């Protein structure tokens, strides 16, 4: 009898959980063409792209073909990062944090906060190792974990507050592995550095009053800061001094891809690419015909990139043109 009761209650439990329809992304035929915002590269030609409506797409052939996997959210995902080939994190609107331990095939919802209207979105995520990570977002949202995302703690970062504006949107983090420095960039010329992996921060002097959308450290160790209306800055002294790079473009710049050697490619809105073969000291503008905004990309071969953006996935060459399908 007791056994039966246990079975019954178990059954009811199952019924109960399936009755509450947990939110999950819809598998869509044209997800490949939807807004995709970030992309991560794993070994074995494997790519993971994330974007609007909780879309997560996997490719096992360097972007030739894609399969969408179900995510436990319909919120727009804004960033994805992997610690190794199996473990990764994706963050997005409604403070959604997802974790995978099987290389992106399945995702679990670790954290979200739908009700928090003051902090509506996470914009970037960075992990030092399997335990230590930081997720940052709009209006100065700052979440920190020391246990691989089991628990997240919101930190106020009062030291970064501007007396007039409060905290800016935090849009991007870039890590300098050689000097163990973590950089964070954001709204209204915000640029800051942390020397203790994000526990404490201090602002750097900004070369520009407009917003920065991305900060990155190149292989050579130089710091690249980019954002609104084609503004691009480069620093060889960890942000002490900045060189303004002439881009001949008004298109906002969203990210940077390392192409090997001292070659770099910057991706922007309006289908604008900036190519550099001197580590970003000078750039050449490439205008793509479709003029769709590009958000992120990875190098997949000698002359091939996979980029994601406004209209989904594109495989392009170093000339910025689409590869034949």
């Amino acid at each position, binding site marked *: 009898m007791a056994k039966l009761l246990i079975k019954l209650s178990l059954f009811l439990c199952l019924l109960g959980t399936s009755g509450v329809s947990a939110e999950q992304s819809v598998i869509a035929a044209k997800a490949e063409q939807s*807004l995709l915002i970030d992309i991560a590269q794993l070994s074995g030609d494997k790519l993971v792209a994330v974007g609007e409506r909780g879309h997560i797409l996997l490719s096992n052939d360097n972007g030739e073909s894609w399969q969408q996997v179900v995510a436990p959210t319909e919120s727009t995902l804004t960033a994805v990062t992997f610690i190794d080939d199996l473990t990764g994190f994706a963050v997005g609107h409604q403070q959604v944090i997802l974790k995978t331990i099987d290389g992106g095939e399945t995702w679990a919802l670790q954290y979200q906060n739908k009700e928090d209207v003051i902090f509506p*979105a996470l914009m970037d995520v960075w992990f030092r190792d399997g335990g230590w990570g930081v997720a940052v977002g709009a209006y100065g949202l700052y979440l920190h974990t020391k246990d691989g995302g089991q628990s997240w703690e919101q930190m106020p970062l009062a030291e970064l507050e501007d007396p007039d504006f409060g905290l800016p949107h935090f849009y991007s983090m870039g890590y300098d592995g050689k000097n163990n420095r973590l950089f964070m960039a954001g709204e209204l010329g915000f640029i800051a550095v942390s020397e203790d992996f994000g526990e404490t921060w201090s602002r750097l002097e900004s070369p520009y009053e407009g917003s920065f*959308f991305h900060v990155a450290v190149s292989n050579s160790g130089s710091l690249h800061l980019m954002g*609104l*209306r084609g503004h691009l800055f480069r620093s060889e002294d960890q942000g002490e001094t900045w060189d303004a790079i002439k881009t001949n473009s008004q298109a*906002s710049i*969203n990210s940077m891809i390392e192409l090997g050697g001292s070659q770099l490619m910057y991706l922007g809105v309006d289908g604008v690419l900036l190519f550099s073969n001197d580590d970003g000291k000078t750039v050449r503008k490439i205008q793509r015909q479709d003029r769709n905004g590009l*958000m992120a990309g990875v190098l997949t071969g000698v002359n091939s990139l996979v980029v994601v953006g*406004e209209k989904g996935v594109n495989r392009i060459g170093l000339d910025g043109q689409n590869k034949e399908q």
Partner: protein
Amino acid sequence: MQQSALNHFIKNTFFKYRVLVLVVFTAVTLGMLYFASQLKVDASFEKNIPLEHPYMQTYLKHQEEFGGANRILIALEDTSGDIFNEDFFKALNKATEKVTAISSVNQPQVQSLFTPNTRYIEVVEDGLEGGPVIPATFDGGQESLETVRKNVLKGGFVGRLVANDFSAAMVSAQLFSVDPNTKEQTDFIAVSSQLEQIRTELESDYPNLKVHIIGFSKMIGDISNGAQDVLMFFGIAFIITAILVYFYSHSIQLSILPLLTSVVAVIWQLGLLTLLGFGIDPMSILVPFLVFAIGVSHGVQMINAVGKNVAGGSTPLDASCAACCRLFIPGMVALLSDTVGFLTLLLIKIDIIKELAVTASIGVAVIILTNLILLPVLLSYAKFGKSFSKRVTKGAEKQTFLWRKLASFAQPKAAKVTVLVAAVLAIGGVYFASEMKIGDLHAGAPALRADSVYNKDTAFITDRFSIGTDVISVMAETKVDGCTDYTIMKTIDDFQWHLQNLSGVQSTLSITSISKVLNAGFFEGNLKWKVLPRETATLAQSIRYIETSAGLFDKDCQYMPIMVFTNDHKASTIEQVVSAVKQYKQDNPSDLVDFKLAMGPVGVMAATNEAVEAAQYPMLIGVYIAVILLCLISFRSIRSTLCIIIPLALVSILAQALMTWLEIGLTVATLPVIALGVGIGVDYGIYIFSRMLDFIREGDPISEAFYKTLNLTGNAVFFTGITLAIGVSTWMLSALKFQADMGILLTFMFLFNMLGAVILLPALASFFYRR
């Protein structure tokens, strides 16, 4: 009425007062001629659509605010391939002014680079900045052209107002269905000729310019121009028919009279249209052909009978009177069955078909008067030369051979083979007929041919711009201020994304897509912010920036259309969208949002397709019940009725198979064809069987009875079939595809119904009347 009583009546009225009959007919004809000359062309949009269909209720409800399907697009192409030069912008400005000046154009909704509603918004360091795409300081110089090019890009007008390759620019306008100045129904044909004038003027003023114009009113204008060729086709049909009648009757007098009475019937028909307040449209313009052809073909039965009587030695008066008495009942039955066949078209809830039904019915009803009264009375005055009887007898001898051959189809053995062949044809026919498609199967305006100017313009615009003309809008009906409610907006957005994923859908657009773009705009254009804002205040703020004239929401923000641009307007594509919408509504019921089909040109097509599909079987059942009843009444025999109906049914099936084979879809134009074909096609059977039954009842074997019948009426039957076929076959030359399609199908039906009557009918009779 007994035949003898009828004979008495005919003799003592029409033939006793012959002069009076002629005077009355002349007077009425003159009157009708006057009214016919007042006939107006009438091609309103509403007439072409099934107004009672639920989709069209949605359409009518929102038409005022959202402009419905009545949009015109004028694309100016610079043949050099680049629009950024002073001359082009002068031309574009001029075109914008001229289009705005058309009185039925909704002026605030006109859009081109030059209109004040064409503004760009851009992200700058301290927020948003915007202005008109063409600044007030524009002077046509290189520098200001460069500014315009930049603003066009910033505003996202590439693909909408400027061609994707910068080789053309667009002026877009909405037409009122009622002209606000004159308070009258908009005259689309007049608008179309005004547009044509703009085209001619601009192209002659600017040699580098090519103008492409599309839109419903332009299409109607082009259709009505195409329909004017109909006069020429009428002429051709008339001449060929006249020659045939002469060869048939061997007498000029006998040739002229049926042509004359048929023309009288056409005049009456056209005159009556004006009296009833109808106009003529590109579809009903074909009815006079039918009336003429039916008039002549029935008239031939009359002159055939009179001629044979005269050759047999009667005076023209006696011969005419006798012929009239004998043909009155079968003629009446045949013509009534035509009329009833047409009237079944009233079952179709599309006004243009209803009008076709009424006008064709009127025409045939008129023929009852002109052919069964006027023609015999006129014939009674005819003078027949001595050689006439000889020629008639001689001609008859030549044909005897053919009639013998045909009669052999009624012999039991041949009959078996014939029926077997018919059965095989029926089975094959049913197979192909079941593949028949509903709706328009080809790109562009289906009423016009693929190589017409209009369809070439359509191809140009859809090729160079990202706006398709194939758009179906689904109306999201919500509560007042629904657009500031996140749950509602998310429901719309999810629905839109669902439709976007269909293989037949190219792109979708709604307030939510714009709202997301604007939200990203508020966050400095950062695509990470391209999401629907959750806060009512933020939503309201984003929507404040959208022009109401964009047609994405109404003034209360309660109704928001989701525009679905499809790859084409093939019935299968439309069906995919429509059933996806229905399925989605079923799977995702919502108390907040009701997604209502449908608006936009493809929405109208969806409704029309559904109405046509729904009407198909009731119409067929209606027309068959009508002809079956008429046969039963006139022959009082089920066997006779079967002999007549089975060949008709076979030809109906084969006609549908032919439609599959020729890729002609079932549309507003081709739907009535079967009803017309059956209604008219039954005449052959009635004429043949009414004679044949007499011989059968006298005890003749079937093939002998049939041979005798052919001797008496075979000529007339063949002639009827050929006259009718010629009358409609000239339509195949029409510039209008739907007229050509109707021509092909009717010609087929008329010819094959005749063959069915002379081959299959006797074979069936030999089965049913075996003894």
